[in-house]
């Protein structure tokens, strides 16, 4: 089923990342960005395993980021971790609210409704200047982390360690969720939701729970990014950002939680390479990569177990038309 991930490989990767961040200060932001995008893509992966793609999930990154900003501005001296936690709580709450009705939708309508909601939020964030700082966003003071006030370099390194530990821990927990009863029901939603109902399981309620989890993951990504930049803008919730999260989730593959991070790493590396060698043609490179991946390996880097071509499964009602 899933490619067994060797703990040694993970440990090695973690050490490499830490070493790079320590030795090369310029690498800290790209690494943190890649880790956050990985977390966000992981949120998308949760839903993709149930066959649902949301085109508006970046809205939870915006919710997480703005909540973090509000917390720091409203409570001077608040710890960065507490502010980020506020961000996650806000996105979980928003996700729960939306999950209640969005979990009844499937396919393109699920995607469209999420997009619509995210654009409502994006537009409001840009317009309600008094609360959100408008299109320029909200700036806030760099908060202390675990009680220690830090200057920029230290802060970035500390955020890197934070993001890395969260990424590893959360990826492990989400993978456990994938293997759990609920996680396996999510997979079954993609292949035969009707049969799930017929064995007494509520696809809607399991999907709703998965949705809340995915909102929290994207919200955490948004909170961390806002924290490290000391800034949150409406852009963090724009539809293009949602598209990038989907892109990374597809690139990495939904077979294993680590896929999202592999996809994010490739994404960030391409951006860096393009900035270094092709000056601002990074979108061309990324676009071409996405097309190539979808054509040759739609199951992504992690790949999924080879599925035999799906035989047509007419619904029980359609069968009677014979």
């Amino acid at each position, binding site marked *: 089923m899933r490619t067994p991930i060797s703990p040694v490989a993970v440990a090695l990767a973690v050490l490499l990342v830490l070493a790079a961040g320590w030795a090369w200060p310029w690498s800290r932001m790209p690494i943190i960005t890649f880790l956050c995008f990985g977390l966000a893509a992981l949120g998308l992966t949760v839903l993709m395993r149930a066959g649902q793609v949301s085109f508006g999930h970046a809205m939870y990154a915006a919710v997480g980021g703005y909540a973090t900003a509000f917390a720091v501005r409203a409570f001077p001296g608040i710890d960065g971790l507490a502010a980020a936690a506020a961000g996650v709580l806000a996105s979980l709450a928003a996700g729960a609210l939306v999950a209640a009705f969005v979990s009844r939708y499937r396919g393109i309508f699920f995607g469209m409704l999420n997009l619509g*909601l995210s654009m409502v939020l994006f537009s409001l964030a840009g317009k309600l200047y008094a609360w959100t700082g408008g299109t320029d966003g909200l700036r806030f003071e760099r908060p202390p982390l675990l009680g220690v006030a830090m200057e920029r370099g230290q802060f970035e390194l500390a955020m890197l360690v934070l993001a890395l530990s969260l990424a590893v821990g959360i990826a492990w927990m989400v993978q456990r969720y994938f293997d759990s009863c609920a996680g396996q029901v999510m997979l079954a939603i993609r292949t035969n939701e009707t049969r799930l109902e017929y064995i007494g399981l509520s696809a809607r309620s399991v999907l709703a729970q998965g949705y809340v989890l995915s909102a929290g993951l994207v919200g955490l990504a948004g909170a961390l990014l806002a924290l490290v930049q000391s800034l949150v803008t409406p852009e963090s919730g724009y539809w293009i950002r949602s598209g990038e999260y989907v*892109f990374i989730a597809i690139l990495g593959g939904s077979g294993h939680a680590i896929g999202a991070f592999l996809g994010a790493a490739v994404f960030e590396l391409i951006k860096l390479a393009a900035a270094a060698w092709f000056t601002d043609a990074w*979108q*061309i490179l990324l676009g*071409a990569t*996405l097309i190539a991946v*979808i054509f040759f390996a739609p199951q992504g880097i992690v790949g999924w177990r080879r599925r035999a071509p799906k035989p047509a499964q007419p619904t029980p009602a359609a069968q009677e038309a014979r």
Partner: protein
Amino acid sequence: MDLNLLLLATVDGLSYAGSLFLISLGLTLICGVFGVINVAHGSLYAFGGYSAASLLAWLLPHTSSTPVLVASLFVAAAVVGGCLGALLERSLLRHFQDRDPVLQLLVTFAVFMVLEDVQRMVWGATPVNAGDLATRLGTTELLGVTFMNYQLLFIPGVALVAYAGLQLLLRHSTAGRQIVAVIHHREVATALGINAARIGTLTFALAGALGALGGALSVPMTSFVPGLGAEMIVTSFAVIATAGLGQVTGALVAAVLIGMARSLAVYTLPELEVVMPYLMMVAVLLVRPHGLFSATAARRI
């Protein structure tokens, strides 16, 4: 709110609706024919506008005839949009036509990303516009407010002609009826001798030209900057999602609804102006997921 304001809002709303419909027409056509949401439609809009501006800039030293200049907008749109649309279908999308619609959408998203960079490389980041072309068509005074004829009459007029033209094409021309046949059943159409592949390219060329036309006609009114295409695609998507994917007449009605809602907001709650299309879209999707005008009943589990 007094009657004057209401009338002004109506006029404003209808003219915005005309522009919105024109831009959404190509998008909904592709949805209806191919079942694909073409994110790159936003790029077609942008390329249409930028190319039209370039063509105008090239023509202006040679002629100051308004009809020629206005016609050049159409020419730019037809050539650039038609070629780009056809190229997109033939070289790329055709190879993904049997894939999951979400993957097809992502391919068009990738194309959009590529074209955004191409656009920036060709035209740069400084705002591009079409000078005073819009003012050449004169103004009309209505209820004490001066409107540009270009915005008030010309664009909605073109939108209506495009609508009527498309309906005529689909119902009464051979090519149009072939398109409809392919929409309904690709395999049967092929069995009847219709070259489905050629029809596909033709439809994309048509939709591309329409999308580019939306941009070409907008450039006399709006400055074109990077990011405008992204804004346009998501707004026109709101229109067609409200109407029902693939519904052409529905898109006209939805454009009017959204245009009116937006202009009413401008006069009452200005902060909600930009939110209106998306509020409408969400409201409709919550009640009728398939859109206001589609035949299928809401499919929920």
